């Protein structure tokens, strides 16, 4: 069976144009819902990256004075090893600590320039059996141990923030799913109207022996195009909001949020996922419509 590309393209374009108001509604709904999906996914990645950065994935960091003697460092190490709540510890010397600082301060060139390996404090990174004990353990190291500059643990606010973003993300995803379902129904309805508008042609096609797929393909393609166009709009919206946020973070030098600027790789993967969902929704909607309303 030769379904000519030209014929299918022409039919699909005519259908979309004839049905443009329905198509527009479907496309915009897909766009809004997929924007939410994309935003939720990016938010999740940004928050995870940022929180990981803030807490360095450790529960307690003990910073030494840059000029602490090796005797003082050894003392602190043995003190840490004798603290029962601490399960694991790694020590970053000047060079490693400097590398770490550069990562944390990425995006803030002046701050990095002010640092040098010699002036950066060395640090013990400790993992606690139970992160909720962080404040008490932290206090023992902050009570004037010689050579210790400061002991810090991720504050409760980080955990609160994590929970808030989790809830926010859940809400976004629920809204997105509801909108995705409604866009599927809208696409289904748009295709149904297209089928109704062309019932004469379809009748003649059946009569003269056009194959089922020949009759179906233009309608299914119409749904696919609607899903795809919606997804493309969503991709643009998500990209623009992402660049907007990144720009604000850089422009106002909000260095604490430096890691919330996502690398291109994460963006591309998310956008591809958005496009894929758009196509799936379009094809699913039109398949159901074709099966239910195009009796071939």
């Amino acid at each position, binding site marked *: 069976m030769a379904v*000519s590309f030209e*014929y299918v393209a022409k039919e699909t374009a005519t259908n979309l144009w004839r049905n443009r108001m329905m198509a527009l509604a479907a496309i915009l709904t897909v766009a809004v819902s997929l924007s939410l999906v994309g935003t939720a996914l990016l938010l999740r990645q940004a928050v995870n990256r940022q929180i990981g950065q803030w807490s360095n994935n450790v529960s307690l960091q003990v910073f030494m004075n840059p000029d602490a003697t090796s005797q003082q460092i050894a003392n602190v190490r043995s003190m840490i090893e004798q603290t029962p709540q601490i399960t694991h510890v790694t020590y970053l010397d000047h060079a490693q600590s400097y590398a770490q600082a550069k990562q944390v301060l990425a995006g803030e060139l002046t701050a990095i320039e002010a640092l040098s390996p010699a002036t950066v404090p060395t640090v013990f990174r400790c993992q606690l059996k139970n992160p909720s004990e962080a404040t008490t353990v932290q206090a023992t190291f902050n009570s004037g141990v010689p050579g210790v500059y400061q002991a810090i643990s991720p504050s409760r606010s980080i955990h609160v923030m994590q929970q808030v973003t989790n809830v926010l993300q859940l809400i976004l995803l629920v809204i997105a799913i509801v909108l995705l379902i409604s866009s599927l129904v809208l696409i289904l309805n748009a295709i149904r109207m297209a089928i109704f508008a062309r019932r*004469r042609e379809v*009748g003649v096609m059946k*009569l003269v*022996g*056009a194959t*089922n797929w020949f009759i179906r393909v233009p309608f299914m393609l119409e749904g696919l195009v609607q899903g795809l166009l919606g997804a493309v709009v969503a991709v643009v919206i998500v990209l623009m909001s992402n660049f907007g946020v990144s720009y604000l973070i850089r422009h106002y030098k909000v260095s604490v949020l430096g890691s919330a600027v996502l690398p291109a790789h994460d963006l591309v993967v998310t956008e591809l996922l958005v496009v894929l969902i758009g196509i799936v929704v379009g094809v699913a909607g039109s398949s159901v419509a074709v099966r239910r309303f195009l009796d071939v």
Partner: protein
Amino acid sequence: MIRFDNVTKSYKGLAPALDDISLEIQKGEFVFLVGSSGSGKTTFLKLLLREAVPDSGSIRVAGRDIGDLSHWRVPYLRRNLGCVFQDFRLLPNKTVTENVAFALEVIGRPKSVIKTQVCQVLDLVGLGQKGERMPHELSGGEQQRVAVARAFVNRPLVLLADEPTGNLDPSTSQGIMKLLDRINRTGTTVVMATHDVGIVDTMRRRVIELDRGRLVRDQARGVYGYGDMTSSTRGVPVVAMAGNGDLGHDAAGDPVTSRVAAVRARRGQR
């Protein structure tokens, strides 16, 4: 070409639309399918097109049992069956040429073939000069010619016509019948369901009569008869036949009279 073996078809809960029909139509025959409304003529054509499937019995078209046909093969069956209807079923937004070409486009014929075949068939139906007209600019007779052209453009083995003259005045109908006759002469089998007494009586071709789903008459070179017993047709064929002398192949007396008697007996009248 077409063969029905004990075909029965009924719609939900109703009396059968076709009841145990067996018949055979040879290649190149011209057959009238007559009977009152609801007698099963349309069901007969629908079964041939496989728009409906018989409850029992088998139907063969060109040697193939179409009951066995898988779903995706049905379109290929329909490519061998041209179809004409009372209401023309032309696409109003396409020109005459486009309407006819559409039938070939959607079965994937190449453009060059479409062009020559459409020209040929429009000349055949006498609309060679009106290819660029829209359907609404044409008279009913011309529209039906377009429909015939569309049905015939792919050179089907069989042309099915469901009351093709139902919307046309007698002289226009004559033109359509001449056209169908011409198509029949090319070797195409024509099956035409009709109510048109005049046409059936002048053409003198094989007549198959259905009455409430039953085959009540199958007569070579037959006439319409007056099985529906309405005042408008009662008696007319008898008068027409009186001077004719050709009483069909039923040698045992007047076929019309005997058939009417049979119908009456079945209905419990007199």
